Structures are given as structure tokens and as C-alpha cells.
């Protein structure tokens, strides 16, 4: 049986751990709120961009933009988004497992992997898996230029034929406690069916729809990358918040059990002492 002092020390240690997990939960919650607002503020841009894209796509000829070329998928690139840090439950593990499954099941001849976030990078580096490119520690200070840089790199590789397909594996943000690991096609650009709801406005294009479309497509890809980065960041904070909440709850439970144990031990010690005193007195009387 552990001594009273040992148990006491144990309780103190669990308590201080709980304080840390509680603080981490608060921080994650604050960051989650910020990330969520950022995600929300992409909405107007997204809506308008789809609108403009729809208007232009109707006008331009079916000349395919280089980013729309649908080649046979011999060379496939997977972009894996993980977090830079741990302490977020099974967030990273799920993503890595998902990515491995995708890589193994893909019938492509050549498979490439690009990682965004430190955890994915470290995992595949450890297993000597060749990486086409990696981006780490961008989530600390996420800016639109990051999305532009990553998207530009992928577009370049797609255009010169290094990749035939580019997929992105990431956690989609559903709500604070739910994330959904999913894979999304990034390149080639999938043409969305433009719904004809209103009468098309006859625009004056300067210089012409084709040139505008050529500029619009990279822009919308940059934006897609940006949205995905934000989704992943928000999911990460959500996952961390939940994980830290669970950790705090577990610590609370542990403290309760240890306290009970401590009290029992204390009582046993007192009973033992009393017993000794009483039996000593009996012996003297004897």
C-alpha cells in the first residue's frame, strides 16, 4: 500500500496537469473562434467568385485552360494537411492513416506526396517515404500568400506534366466537435455545372472572356487552397479543444479516485494506531 505522502504527491501532480490541459483547452477555444470567423469571412468572396466564374464560363469558348486538362491519372499527387502540433487527439493519426490508405489503394503508376504541417512531414520522414515537397509551420501565422505559394507550386507541376491529378486530404470543419477527413480533387479543375437561373447579362468584356477566364482559374485555385487551409486550421483547434476537455475530465476523475484512496488509507492508519494504543493499555492493565 502506498504511503499517505505518496498519494498526496500524486494528487498534486494530477492537479497541476489538469490545470495545464484546462488552459490549453481555453487557448484552443479562443483560437477556434478566431479561425471560425476567418473561415466565415471567406464566404462573400466565395459567393462572388462563383458568380463571376459562372458568367465568364458561359461566354468563353470550350478551349480548355491548361488547369482543366483531364489526362489519364498515371502520376498522382496527394497533398496531406496535418497540424504542426500534437495534443489534438487522433486528429493527425486519422489523417495519416487515411493518406496511407489512399496511397496504397491508388492504381496510379507514380504517386507523389506533399505534406503541409509538421506532423505529417515528421511521420513520413521517419518512415523514409519520399516527399515531393513539404510546408511546415505555416499554421502559426496563416496568410493568404501561403495559399498562393502552395497553389502556384502545384499548378506549375501540373502544367509541366509532373502530375496528372492532384488530390488534397484534409479535415473538413463541420462544427467545433466534428471534423470529417476527406479527399478533394484540386487539379484538374472540375467544371461545375452552371445553373441557368437568371437571364444572362450581356457583359462588355475587356479584353475578352478567354483572357479573363485564364486569370480567373488560378485565382479560384488559390482561393480553394486558402479555404482548405482555414478549414484544416479550424478543425485542428476544434480537435484540440475536445481532446483537452476529455483530458481535463479524466484528470478530474482521477483526482476523485485518488482522494478516496487517500482517505481510506488515512482511516486505516488511524484505526491501526488506535488498535495499538488500546491493546497497549489492555496489556498494562493486565
Amino acid at each position, binding site marked *: 500500500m502506498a504511503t499517505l505522502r505518496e498519494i498526496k504527491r500524486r494528487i498534486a501532480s494530477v492537479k497541476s496537469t489538469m490545470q495545464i490541459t484546462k488552459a490549453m483547452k481555453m487557448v484552443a477555444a479562443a483560437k477556434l473562434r478566431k479561425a471560425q470567423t*476567418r473561415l466565415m*469571412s*471567406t464566404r*462573400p*468572396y466565395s459567393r*462572388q*467568385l462563383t*458568380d*463571376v466564374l459562372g*458568367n*465568364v464560363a458561359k461566354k468563353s469558348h470550350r478551349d480548355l485552360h491548361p488547369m482543366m486538362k483531364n489526362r489519364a491519372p498515371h502520376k498522382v499527387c496527394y497533398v496531406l494537411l496535418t497540424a504542426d502540433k500534437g495534443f489534438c487527439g487522433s486528429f493527425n493519426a486519422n489523417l495519416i492513416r487515411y493518406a496511407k490508405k489512399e496511397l496504397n489503394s491508388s492504381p496510379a503508376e507514380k504517386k507523389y506526396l506533399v505534406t503541409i504541417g509538421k506532423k505529417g512531414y515528421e511521420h513520413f520522414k521517419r518512415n523514409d517515404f519520399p516527399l515531393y515537397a513539404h510546408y511546415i509551420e505555416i499554421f502559426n501565422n496563416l496568410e*493568404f500568400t501561403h*495559399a*498562393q505559394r502552395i497553389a502556384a507550386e502545384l499548378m506549375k507541376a501540373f502544367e509541366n506534366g509532373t502530375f496528372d491529378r492532384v488530390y488534397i486530404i484534409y479535415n473538413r470543419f463541420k462544427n467545433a466537435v466534428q471534423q470529417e477527413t476527406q479527399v478533394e480533387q484540386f487539379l484538374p479543375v472540375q467544371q461545375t455545372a452552371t445553373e441557368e437561373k437568371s437571364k444572362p*447579362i*450581356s*457583359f*462588355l*468584356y*475587356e*479584353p475578352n472572356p478567354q*483572357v*479573363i477566364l485564364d*486569370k*480567373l482559374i488560378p*485565382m479560384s485555385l*488559390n*482561393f480553394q487552397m*486558402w479555404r482548405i487551409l482555414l478549414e484544416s486550421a479550424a478543425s485542428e483547434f476544434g480537435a484540440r479543444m475536445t481532446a483537452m476537455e476529455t483530458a481535463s475530465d479524466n484528470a478530474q476523475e482521477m483526482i476523485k479516485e485518488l482522494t478516496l484512496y487517500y482517505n481510506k488509507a488515512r482511516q486505516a492508519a488511524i484505526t491501526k494506531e488506535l488498535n495499538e494504543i488500546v491493546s497497549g493499555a489492555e496489556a498494562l492493565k493486565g
Partner: protein
Amino acid sequence: MTDKNLKLEIITPEKIVFSNPVDHVKAPGYNGYFGVKPEHIPFLTVIKTGNIKAEMGKENKCFAVCGGFVQVTGNTMLILAEAAEDAASIDLERAQRARDRAMKRLQEKAENTDIPRAKAALLRALNRLEVAKM
């Protein structure tokens, strides 16, 4: 003069930079600067790095933009830019640093320097500085 206003909206992926009625807007289009007044015909163009000037009454507002689109429909002028900043909120020091960095990269001409990108960066920095001083 019509009594109607033109609604100017400047939107970037990060936020809505500006959304207010104005009288007149000047923006850097594909073929150079162009002006838009209320009741403009539907118009769609690419915008380059430059500045957008908006007039409302006696007030003027100026924005630095780089890369994007303008769509004019009816009485709304929508500007979708990859980056846009209100002249008043430009960080001069940061813009200067960006300019110096871009210049250095162009001068060194290291093997892995992406020249077009460095040039674009330089242009953006110069534009920001110019707009800030207006």
C-alpha cells in the same frame, strides 16, 4: 448628374475591405485606368496592380490592389482582389522592407530565384508605397 449612387464593394479572400455607395471610381483595368460612374453598362475586366480611387461627395478614398477582377452590373461595382488595402492602413515600414527584399533578390539573381515572382513582388511593394504617400 444622376441622383443614383454606385455601390462599390471591394472583397478579398480575407475580408470585405470596402462596401459603400460612391459617386465615381477609378481603377486599373487591363488596358489602363478606367472610370466608372453610376448607370455604367455591365462590364467585366481584369485588374492589375495599382490603385483604386473612389469619390463620394467631397471625400476621396484610395486603395492599393493587386490582381483581381472587376464586375460592374447595374449600380454595383464588385472588385474581387487577391489583396487590397485601404491607403490609410498601409504599413509603410513593411512595404519598404518588402521592396528592399524584392530588389535584393533581383540584383543577386541567385539560381533559384523566380524572376517573374520577384518582379511582381517588387511591383506590389512599390505600388503600396505609392498609394500610401498619396
